[in-house]
């Protein structure tokens, strides 16, 4: 786990939960755009947006983590990540900060079915504990 410790993370919130994504995996963070919904797509796919001329698929991280959708707020952001040579947007309630973790614990069990394997581990920063998201697992599942 030592390799994960020195890396930088973006800390974000969905619902009451705080998660983190490795900064290398993030392409950019944008404000909410107008989303075009796609008929007959999976429920967690919210639609597509125009990212400077590119059509990018946008998903709800809330849905991906088994939470219901909430109306957008001023703090709602789309985190654009790279996944298998494509850009994919993840809607989050809020982006908190860039951070590093002094210690990273292996993922704890008992998250429930939606969460199986969704985390690389748990980062610790002082007393705070933050789940580090495993994008391959979340987007691939």
């Amino acid at each position: 786990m030592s390799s994960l410790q020195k890396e930088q993370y973006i800390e974000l919130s969905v619902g009451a939960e705080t998660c983190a994504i490795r900064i290398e995996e993030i392409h950019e963070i944008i404000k909410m755009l107008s989303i075009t919904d796609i008929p007959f797509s999976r429920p967690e796919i919210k639609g597509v947006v125009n990212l400077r001329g590119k059509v990018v698929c946008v998903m709800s991280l809330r849905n991906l983590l088994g939470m219901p959708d909430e109306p957008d707020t001023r703090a709602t952001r789309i985190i654009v990540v790279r996944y298998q040579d494509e850009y994919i947007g993840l809607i989050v309630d809020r982006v908190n900060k860039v951070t590093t973790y002094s210690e990273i614990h292996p993922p704890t069990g008992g998250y429930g079915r939606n969460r199986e394997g969704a985390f690389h581990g748990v980062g610790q920063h002082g007393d705070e504990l933050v789940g580090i998201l495993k994008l391959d697992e979340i987007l691939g599942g």
Partner: protein
Amino acid sequence: MMDLSAYRDIFIEELNDQLERMDQSLLALELSPSVELVQTLFRAAHTIKGSASTMDFRELSDLTHEVEYALEWVREKKPEMTSELIDTLFRSLDAMKVLRDQYIRGEAYADFRAVVREIKDLIQTPAVVGKLVTPQLQPAESIVAQVAVVSGKHLLSIHIMLEHKCMMKAARYHILRQRIEDICGTVVTTSLMEMQPGAQNEDDHYSQFIIIVATSKDRQQLETELSTDSDIHMLEIHPYVLESNEIAATSAPVELISEPEHTKPSLPTVTTSGSGSDEKVKAAQPTVRVSVERLDHLMNLVGELLIDQTSLADLSGSGARKESSSLIQSIGGVSDHMGRVIKELQEGVMKTRMLPIDQLFSRFPRLVRDLSQKLGKDLELVIQGGETELDRMIIEELSDPLIHLIRNSADHGIESAEVRGELGKPSKGRITLTSFHEENHVVIRYSDDGKGIDGEKIKASALGKGIISEEQAARLSTQEAVHLIFEPGFSTASSVSEVSGRGVGMDIVRSQIGRLNGIIDIDTEVGVGTTFTIRLPLTLAIIKGLLVKVSGRVLILPMYNVAEIVRISPEDIQMIQGQQAILNHGRIVPFHRLCDRLNYPRTERKSKTIPLVIVRSVDKIAAYAVDEIIGNQEVVIKTLGTYLGAMNHLSGATILGNGKVALILDASYLVSH
């Protein structure tokens, strides 16, 4: 070794060009022999040989060397252009193509020694065509053989063909026989060519022979030892199996013209390529050849855009000091100019993707020739308008549908020469491929002068196969029935043949043309012929789209598929067999609400009439109610990406002027599902 991977793509492209050229020249040569054509073929072969050996692609350069040698022989000796000669050349060309494909895919190379031998045989056709028979063992010989086997030796049959130019064949034969006896120990028996009566040259008797030996040496060993001997044109060594009830069973005659199965079985048929480097496995990147003139034109346009940009920057700089009305006018002027330049740039860039359709059509004379031979029908292919330009991707995708059409015509459509004679038609069946531009479309007209499609027969056949019901059949007009040939699982051929008749062909034609946003019309007359008219968009990258509003969303339908836009009142919608439909120009057209088809919520209708888009794809038609027709506009198609999964109802998305994404509907899917 020098790194050649950088030249790989160029090499493949050149190879494709040259092979294509050879194919065409060979076809022309078959029709009318000419020295120039042989010279063209020779030059192409020479070029391929040269570049292949530069690329260290020995398998191809070796094979091409033989082809080149054969062509040189044709050029010097000017033999009669027999069909064997042409066929051999075609076969070697095919072999070269196989090697090319294997090279591109990085696969192991197939063994084409049989083809090489065929070429060699062609050049050195022996003066006498005789028969060589595997020797029958006489009782005494059989005992010798059996004793040898018991003592641990094995029997080998050595088949030797001497060089045609070898002077004293008889002497050579005796020397070789002696040598083989020295190497192997025991010669069981030998067999010479059987002479045809009246043969002049006594020596030809010895031009080929089979020697059966008992030896402890293995095949490879023997082969290596003998391969150094001079005057041997061909050497084959097989194990000889002693029949249990010896005094040989029926002896199999060995035809003089060697067949592929005569390849040395001791060697593996596939040899692996020398280097398995990763570059080789990499598929060839598609490249585009653009004339310098076109490129310069594009550069000029980009230059003009830069100037426009500078003037905009100037305007913004001086804007503070100027009056707003004159400023707006200036900006408007620059914007107009930019608009024109961009439009021209767009067309120019699109043109770089265009290829003359000849690229596709030129593949078909060969196909027609092969079909003609295979089916024993006299066929002729007439190509018109090969210079018509079309998006390269469409050209690729069109290949399969057209091949299906040609096969169908050759197999089912065009009658045999005898039948044609009786009908007073020219004995040669004619297939015509014409291409031209019409408005914003490319039209490909494919016609044959065969027996046409009998709608009534089609109907009966579809009924028999359960594709349509009795009552459906009763309602179908003859013309409509013809369209049944596009239904999956439909085939009129009473027997399944090698060429066509698997009952999948026309189905593929429809789906492929549908994918390209094209439409097909069939025009057929029993006894006279059939014409398929295929209409295709010029390009797939930019389309004209009809913008419609449904449930508050803007959707785009490709204009190619929009047959008509009408307004109807709700009373016009009728229920027919549990399905809503409208009457349009006397046709019954299925009616759907686009919002229902796409699972969108229905919106309250304000106006009395319903805007309706009549969509057509390939040969199907349906009407879709929308909330509002916005208008048409050119849209750039963007892919939705693979992450979304299969979205068959959408052919992509585009970005509208307001920056929002609008979905482009796939009309062919919409209409047929």
